[in-house]
């Protein structure tokens, strides 16, 4: 229990570092020195000391929305297994809890945005809801597939099994024919599930944490933003909560990616070190994606997001076909 609590705190700390790491990677790609990795943390600390400006047209919902959003994100983190061990709490079907507690936070953010009556924030809310509705099936299909595969319905149990099973697949390197390759893939459903799961989670990070190519967190253009535009009216501690929650989302989804590939049954310290290293890799990947491509046109975002669902469907199809045989 103590162990899990420490890991939970570790995830929160790592999550807070993620935006700074991503920005650093982007700066290096752009040939700049860039701000300190700790800058987003400094910003959050600074915002804690700032006073708030609250529009007179808003209702109490606007005031509680950022807090609910943060608490929802923190709660969601409770069921995420960190560094190869069980999460702080786990129960059957906790991934559904994870998805919908995050949705609750989003629901309140959207309400808060609509509450301001600003036309920009209304547009942002409409986009946010559209895209998150599109990413939801992807998450459930991939998690459903993994539940089918492992026979469990909890993050902790699923993820403790998958990497372990992966290690058992031995690929014979003596001349792999195409037929053999197909056979291998068909039988290593786990490998497919793990790879596709990673892609789906990565796309989820880009959508949920409003990163490129879905949203652009750097240019503050109110007409094109999705997530950032919803929080234009927030200031002070509320804004700090929002930024913290947004960092947490990157951290938690990144942790899920890592959980898919982190070999189970490692010693505590080596597992933690490997976890930190893999999280760094996740940050570098996100930063690099942002650095080498332009943002998608708004009308193309749904295609990109639906792509995640198709990838998840592939996994499901392979599993279903595999079970028939």
């Amino acid at each position, binding site marked *: 229990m103590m162990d899990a609590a420490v890991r939970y705190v570790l995830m929160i700390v790592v999550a807070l570092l993620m935006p700074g790491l991503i920005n650093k990677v982007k700066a290096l790609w752009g040939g700049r020195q860039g701000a300190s990795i700790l800058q987003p943390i400094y910003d959050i600390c600074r915002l804690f000391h700032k006073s708030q400006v609250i529009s007179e047209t808003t209702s109490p919902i606007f005031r509680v929305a950022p807090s609910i959003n943060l608490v929802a994100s923190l709660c969601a983190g409770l069921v995420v297994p960190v560094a190869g061990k069980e999460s702080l709490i786990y129960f059957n079907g906790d991934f559904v809890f994870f998805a919908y507690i995050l949705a609750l936070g989003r629901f309140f953010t959207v309400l808060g945005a609509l509450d301001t009556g600003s036309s*920009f924030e209304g547009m942002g809310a409409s986009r946010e809801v559209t895209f998150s509705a599109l990413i939801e099936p992807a998450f459930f299909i991939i998690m459903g597939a993994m539940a089918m595969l492992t026979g469990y319905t909890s993050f902790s149990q699923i993820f403790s099994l998958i990497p372990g099973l992966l290690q058992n697949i031995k690929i014979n390197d003596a001349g792999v024919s195409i037929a053999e390759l197909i056979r291998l893939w068909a039988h290593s459903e786990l490998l497919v599930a793990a790879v596709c799961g990673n892609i789906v989670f990565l796309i989820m990070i880009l959508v949920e944490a409003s990163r*490129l190519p879905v949203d652009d967190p750097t240019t503050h253009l109110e007409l094109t933003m999705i997530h950032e535009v919803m929080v234009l009216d927030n200031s002070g501690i509320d804004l700090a909560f929002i930024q913290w929650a947004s960092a947490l989302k990157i951290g938690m989804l990144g942790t899920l990616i890592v959980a898919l590939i982190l070999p189970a049954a490692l010693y505590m310290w080596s597992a933690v070190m490997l976890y930190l290293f893999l999280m760094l890799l996740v940050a570098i990947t996100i930063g690099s994606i942002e650095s080498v491509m*332009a943002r998608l046109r708004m009308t193309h975002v749904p295609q990109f997001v639906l792509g995640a669902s198709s990838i998840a469907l592939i996994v499901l199809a392979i599993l279903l076909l595999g079970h028939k045989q």
Partner: protein
Amino acid sequence: MYKWLKVKNPAIVPLKDIPVLTVPEMLEEVVDLIKNEGVRPLHFAGRKTHDNRKVTVTIVLADDVENSLLLSQVVFTADDCYDSLTPQAPIMHLFERELYEQAGIIPLGHPWPKGVRYEHDRVGDLGNFNEYPYLQSEGIRMHEVAVGPVHAGIIEPGSFRFLCYGEQVWHLEIQLGYQHRGVEGLFKTGSILNKSHLSESIAGDTVIGHAWAYAILAELLTDTEVTNRVQAIRAIALELERIAMHLVGLGGIAMDIGYLPGASVYGRLRTAVINTMLKICGSRFGRGLIRPGGVLFDIDTALNLEIVDVLDVLYRDIEKINELFFNMPSVLSRLEHTGTVSKETAKAIGLVGIMAKMSGLSVDSRISHPISIYANERLKPHVLDGGDVFARAKIRVLEIDQSMRLIRRWLGTEVKRNELYVKPGTVKSNHLAVSVVEGWRGEISHMVITGNQSSVLQYKVKDPSFNNWMGLALAVRDNGISDFPLCNKSFDLSYCGFDL
């Protein structure tokens, strides 16, 4: 064509030589010329005459086919009205509104009679600024989005109101006129010869263009001949300004679509170019270089070599980033078919400069109305037919290339020690002078009319933004509202160039 005085750019004519049309003649002639012969209006400016009982409207048209400017004037009684030209020639819509605001001559039947700048000394009153009659829309899923007038970025004040259907823009109404600087009025105070600083401040990003257009007028009015060397230095500065601002435009486009390498590399290259301007004249934006009678700074052999070095680096690096930028699928998917302006629309509303060229019109006053040194260059205009953001980015690349070649050629010619500055003499009375300079954004035109004892009766400035803002409003129609910042950046128009 005796009704129009045909002159070459730049021109000075005695006021008494300008033919006077009757009002019906003017209406008929202007529409005919604009409709049939591909002529564009440059100035349509009224001033009070005959002890404020009359209004004399000076009309300057640019004929791109004959490479000449057409001058004429028409006299209205004060507060007179006439049948608006706009229904037949939409290109006149803003000119007529401006005339009403500045001189009080009412265009009857103008489809869109709204204020232009709400100047404090306006004569014709087209309503209050606070009660600006925005277009409105009603219906389920219709909504209006107002941006500005205080923009979230650091750019200037302008109010943009989008009439949207969901995410789709049906129309964008752009309302400017927040600055009330009274530039044209300031030109009338004191001597016309010491207005260099004012001309450099018309639009901070087009210092050389406006300063040159003004300097030509001052030189024409004082019969000052400047040497070829002066012309070459001015032209080099103008092309450097063009390169620098086109790089800003490209960097901005890259920034708006979130393409990081483009934003950083174009930004870096731009710094090198404006630093070169700093070495020439002590200001990165070219302030203090051009004065009536010449230039204040020379480009000596050492500086010559430095500029060549900068151009070499620019030439090498820009090719790489262009290669990357214009071949990246994610970039192309954002740029292509976004914010398209058709050739017909561009012609109808009279786009100028790069915005005309990107939509298929060959409008470049360096070619059709060349001043001095440009007359010897056989420039070919780069014309694209896309009319979309891609074309607007591409035209900048092509023009940067063209400008680099021009600068190299001028730097390469042997430096003859010519006089850099001649003190201008006395200002001629009762003359009209007009100049056209192709700034980076497009055609800049200044016009001055002097009265007795060298006084300035009227000074008129036309920045290319005056023509092109309407293009932006039409470009975003039927586009996603989220593509507006990209369209806006690709047009890159000046607020202060409009809000004189």
